[in-house]
């Protein structure tokens, strides 16, 4: 038993931490939230130079073939920023999905540019906000001579504005769920950023978009269980990102209890303020150890499906709760869009249901452990 990081991982961690401090000071994220410009092309380029895009991929496709835990250590630090943009959505999830689903030609064509940050592939999976699963895939792929037409609306696509192409789920005329890559500049695609208590999310409309057969992933477009396999390896990285974000919220909130003086003493002396911090710490550490235990299972080749769903449920809920409890400590000053607290608060609400709510993943965990009759 050894719950510490390896020397390499400590090194990865430091490099990523320095990067965040230098390139992505928290107040930037708050700027981005205000002007809705969360996509920073130069950040993708830099991440590519650091080798973080597709870093778990085999070297032949442009990756560094590192372990899931190695990769998670980096994304935990990125979460501290929080560093926005498609580093996870394209660099991890799309990359793993392409690796799982595609033919070697497709991999060779799609993955290297993705790893170099020349292309940004953004998953656009479900057509319904209120559910996560194949049942919520409704976009239609209709056959016509020499190809297909794609019609549908993906109401919430995370990082959509960064896309050079979309990794899209659709339903064939036979009702089968398939996956395809669509150039973001194809005629018939409209991207409409959302306004509200969320960030980096847009509606993507596919209106009679022409798709050629070779754009289907693999020979036949793969299927939902291919996506599940890709998610098994990707979701824990997203969890690590949320753990890092929660750690940052916990750290700057505890520090605030030492420096902020009210009624003649640091607020950290008040039991109620202490109790808010206790709750943050519990959500943080519950998420941290659920995540790293899952990563360990993956890296040691143990079955991990249920653990992955558990970690996603705990980490998304944990980040959400951590920001709410932090708001109890920060009160007014924490509600100013110029304050890092707001960057985390909005992001935590956005990630709560990204790729499925905690509730959905708890149910998937149960189904993995105790299949229903």
């Amino acid at each position, binding site marked *: 038993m050894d719950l510490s990081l390896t020397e390499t991982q400590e090194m990865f961690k430091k490099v990523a931490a320095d990067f965040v401090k230098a390139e992505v000071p928290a107040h930037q994220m708050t700027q981005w939230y*205000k002007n809705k410009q969360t996509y920073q092309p130069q950040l993708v380029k830099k991440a590519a130079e650091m080798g973080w895009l597709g870093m778990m991929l085999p070297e032949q496709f442009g990756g560094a073939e590192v372990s899931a835990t190695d990769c998670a250590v980096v994304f935990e630090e990125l979460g501290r920023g929080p560093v926005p943009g498609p580093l996870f959505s394209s660099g991890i999830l799309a990359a793993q999905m392409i690796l799982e689903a595609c033919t070697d030609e497709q991999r060779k064509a799609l993955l290297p540019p993705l790893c170099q940050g020349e292309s940004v592939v953004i998953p656009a999976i479900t057509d*319904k*906000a*209120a*559910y*996560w699963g194949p*049942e*919520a895939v409704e976009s239609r792929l209709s056959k016509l001579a020499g190809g297909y037409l794609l019609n549908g609306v993906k*109401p*919430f696509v995370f990082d959509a504005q960064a896309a050079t192409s979309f990794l899209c789920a659709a339903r064939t005329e036979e009702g089968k769920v398939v996956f395809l890559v669509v150039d973001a500049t194809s005629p018939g695609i409209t991207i409409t950023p*959302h*306004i*509200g*208590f*969320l960030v980096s*999310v847009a509606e993507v409309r596919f209106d009679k978009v022409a798709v050629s057969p070779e754009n289907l992933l693999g020979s036949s477009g793969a299927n939902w269980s291919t996506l599940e396999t890709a998610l098994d390896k990707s979701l824990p990285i997203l969890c690590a990102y949320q753990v890092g974000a929660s750690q940052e919220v916990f750290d700057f909130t505890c520090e605030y209890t030492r420096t*902020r*003086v*009210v*009624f*003649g003493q640091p607020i950290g002396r*008040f039991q*109620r*303020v202490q109790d808010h911090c206790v709750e943050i710490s519990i959500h943080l550490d519950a998420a941290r150890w659920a995540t790293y235990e899952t990563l360990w299972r993956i890296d040691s080749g143990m079955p991990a499906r249920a653990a992955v769903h558990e970690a996603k449920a705990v980490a998304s809920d944990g980040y*959400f709760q951590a*920001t*709410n409890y932090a*708001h*109890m400590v920060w*009160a*007014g000053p924490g*509600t*100013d*869009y*110029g304050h890092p607290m*707001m960057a985390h*608060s909005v992001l935590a*609400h*956005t990630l*709560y*249901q990204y790729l499925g*709510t*905690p*509730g959905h993943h708890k149910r998937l965990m149960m189904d993995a452990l105790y299949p229903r009759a």
Partner: protein
Amino acid sequence: MDFNVSADPPHVVEFRNEVAAWLAEQFKGHQHLRWSASWSTREDDEEYKFRRGLAAKLGAKGWLFPLFPKKYGGAELTVDHQMVLETELFKYGLNLSHVFYTLARIVAPVLIRWGTEEQKAEFLPPITRAETCVWQVLTEPHGGSDIANCQTKAIRDGDHYVVNGQKVMVGHHLPPDYLWTLVCTNPQGKRHENLAWLHIPAKLPGVTIQHMYLMMGIKNAVFFDNVRVPAKYLIGGENNGWKVASTHMELEHGGDGRIAVDPLIERVVDYCRNTRIDGKPLMEDPRVRDLVADMMIELNTLRRFNQLIYWRRFAKKPHPYGGPQQRYFQRMMRLRNGERLQAIMGADALVQDLSVHEVVDFEYAVRTGPGQLHGGGTLDTDRLIFARRLGLGRPTTEKAPETD
């Protein structure tokens, strides 16, 4: 017991018809402006102007303060009349409280308690008639809940106070007429004895107002740079600011109560009936039904707390901890219901929908959870006041505050 809010004694039956008809008239063509989030976070000028206009018309009839003497802008009516006015307004989701952006509901009683005859005569009518807009200007950058630790200086200079300092997180997106302000007259003075209360005209030279962009919409920083305030605007006398503040806080913390039914749940149910997954309405999903049930029960509990506070205010029954209990419960309930909305509808709960009023907008319902954990104190001060009012760990319990 009778929970029916509009069972009238004979002498006001006619009055209810009159008020109902009058309000129907006012709302012609403005039905979309019914309901009140006490402060809208949308900076909707149409709504703002309609509210202020309605307030002015109510004020002209003395209906904003029906119990007040006419000379102070009241109508010299009975509690039963006030109940009629409140209940009829509630049918439009409004109440006589400071939903009219004027703060009159708090300022007027404080002036009655602490103003001189001259001040009442001059300051009260424009306020009780909602002709002027007053901002509560208390919070300071480093003050937080500890308002007695006031850094904004007001040094007496002949028949003026020279005010210097900064207040934050106050007001709304449109400018005020007066700044209802706590100031420090002597930085070296004893805590609680070095404070004064000023009713500062916002147009005075040296007053600068700057927008702040916050989770719950635009508020402002107010800067005072050698602002010379005539001494006639001093409320409650020299160094009596803390006593005035206490009256103010009692009113802010006591809670007015309300009897409107929150319309949010109906819209949630509509969403769940009209949203189908795999052809099946969400409303058939047992987990969704459980979430809706919990949400509904908590909204009902809040409605009952509000009605109880409301009734006790009129029946003059003591209810020492009703205000802080209601505020604490409401803050926590909003957080829970916001998460329930996201659990039910995912990101659909996070997108602003300008086609519906803010109080039934899911995005507002979610944002108001983390967004209103503070304001008139915090979760923590709510519970502090609860404990004082109930006398936990103390020999006696505090007496119930006057909140009407």
